[in-house]
């Protein structure tokens, strides 16, 4: 699924961070991380809110100076060549930051001009991008009238106006309904197929699992794991997970009773997770022990399980 082996790295990476630190006063948001993003890959920062993902993204976007450590983006130092780097980046911030009092077309055209593009170029590009984002019918309406999903799509379209070499997406689908999310994913797949390097932050593990070749899991300003989704799952979790739910008040002591049926057992407030290579067999064994859950579910391991294993917490509380 991921093309790591197929795309050997030549020369410098798109992004290279060494011992990168971001402080806000006394608060250390990013505590010395090492990251390399290669040309053409889709790279993810996965972690809960407050893990330091956005601070890292803003430093890479060259809109936020680093507090310590070293950072190279497109081979350049953001402290020295900020505008030069930004000229070649696309950035989708958490907030849409669109000009809601202007039309979609005007938003795209004005933005393109900041990248030194000619009027003719931004006109052509705006039309092309509204097609890409399936917003052509709304092209000359006001942004104010758009739904949340449409605004998000427009923000992504806007980030592509300069044909960026590197596209940064900070929580691109937060707050969107499932349909809108899938449509966005589809657009991101197309970009990736077109050779654009993507960096995505998310606290949705399915999003990162779907989109990213490689990711780092962040927690409390640090990187706690790195690899491809399948590698991470193989390394930190089992193939399958058995989820057991119990009636309120009946979960106590269950974890210890079923511990022997899996490689590992996690107890969450509302359920018990049994990590095992064969979930169905574990379920039979649980039933054989006369443990009676209200419901049970056998599923494959996800990055959520990896995160739980690494931090003892779930991604979205």
């Amino acid at each position, binding site marked *: 699924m991921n093309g790591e082996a197929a*795309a*050997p*790295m*030549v*020369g*410098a990476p*798109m992004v290279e961070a060494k011992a990168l630190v971001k402080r*806000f006063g006394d608060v250390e948001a990013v505590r010395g991380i090492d990251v390399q993003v290669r*040309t*053409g890959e889709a790279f993810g920062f996965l972690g809960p809110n407050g893990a330091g993902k956005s601070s890292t993204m803003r430093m890479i*976007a060259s*809109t*936020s*100076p680093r507090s310590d450590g070293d950072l190279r983006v*497109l*081979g*350049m130092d953001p402290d020295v*060549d*900020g*505008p*030069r780097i*930004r*000229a*070649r*980046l696309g*950035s989708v*911030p958490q*907030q849409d*930051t*669109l*000009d*809601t*009092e*202007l039309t979609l077309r*005007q938003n795209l055209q*004005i*933005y393109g*001009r*900041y*990248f*030194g*593009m000619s009027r003719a*170029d931004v006109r052509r*590009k705006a039309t*092309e991008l509204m097609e890409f984002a399936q917003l052509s019918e709304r092209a000359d309406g006001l942004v104010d009238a758009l739904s949340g999903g449409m605004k998000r799509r427009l923000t992504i379209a*806007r980030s592509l106006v*300069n*044909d*960026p*070499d590197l596209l940064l997406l900070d929580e691109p689908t937060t707050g969107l309904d499932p349909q809108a999310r899938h449509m966005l994913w589809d657009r991101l797949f*197309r*970009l990736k*197929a*077109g*050779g*654009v390097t993507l960096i995505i932050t998310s606290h949705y593990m399915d999003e990162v699992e779907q989109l990213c070749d490689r990711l780092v899991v962040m927690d409390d300003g640090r990187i706690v794991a790195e690899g491809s989704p399948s590698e991470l799952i193989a390394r930190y979790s089992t193939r399958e997970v058995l989820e057991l739910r119990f009636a309120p008040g009946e979960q106590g002591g269950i974890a210890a009773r079923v511990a022997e049926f899996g490689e590992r057992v996690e107890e969450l407030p509302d359920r018990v997770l049994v990590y095992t290579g064969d979930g169905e067999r574990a379920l039979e064994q649980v039933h054989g022990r006369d443990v009676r859950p209200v419901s049970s579910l056998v599923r494959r391991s996800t990055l959520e399980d990896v995160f739980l294993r690494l931090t003892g917490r779930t991604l979205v509380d």
Partner: protein
Amino acid sequence: MANGGTASGGATGSGTTGTTGTTGTTGTTGTTGTTGATGATARVEIGSRSAGRVVGSWRAAWLRVEAHWTWYRRYWRSSLYSSGLQPVLFLAAMGLGFGSQVEAGPATGGLAYVHYVAPALLVAGAVQNAIGESSYPVLSGFKWQQDYYAVTATPVTAGQLLGGQIIWIVLRVGIACVVYTLVALLFGAWLNAGALLVVPIGVFAAVACGVPIMAVAATTYNEGERFAAIFRFLVMPMILFSGTFFPIEQIPAAVRWLAWISPVWHGTELARGVTLGGLGGWPALGHLAFLGVLAGFSAALARRYFYRRLVV
């Protein structure tokens, strides 16, 4: 990949197509300092297919003006009253109506009141206009629309963004001043061609008053109650007691210094000087210097605050 690369290579247009002849391999070529668009560069920059480039500072600021103009073309009617009609109404009411009851005397330089008040009303209107444009609209860029953050994610810097905002206010206030001057001409408010100089003086005073408000906006995080206080307790008294309607010599000596530190008074003195005469060279220079220092100092301060808020 080759397909996408080719498509975007075509899209990037002129400068970069030369290098993207090898689009199939752009994904892996990695470091070459040779992008067709930027030419030879010593740094180890990774090869590019992007159409983006850095523009010069003045050009960047001007692109912001372009953006404001796009907005203005759609919404100019909504600001017609505050920036266009209001000063004219004031001129009609104060200059012609109230002025008909005022005898020409030493205080008005022996002139009809409409001649006395017309240049001052231009300055007062310009200042109010600029302060209005520098308050909520600037705060919105940081706080509500947050479009300033979108702009500074491009090659345009926070300083260029501020520069564009100031230039925009110069143009916008300038347009309003020209309109006012023409209407005042119909009223017979101008005595001579010196009226032409009143416009740049009004704009200058407006910038000197607007830029400090931009600095305030850049440090405002709440819903902007601050501005309501500024309008009520700073701007209004400043307009009323800066020699707009009567000479500040009528103000008790103990508080007259408040007029001296008012930028509106300095602007008004200059505006009267060029139309009515009676202003010496040194005082004129003094007034200009006061406004210049205020504008320059607050621009430096605003620049600092813009960076502090946008580049964190």
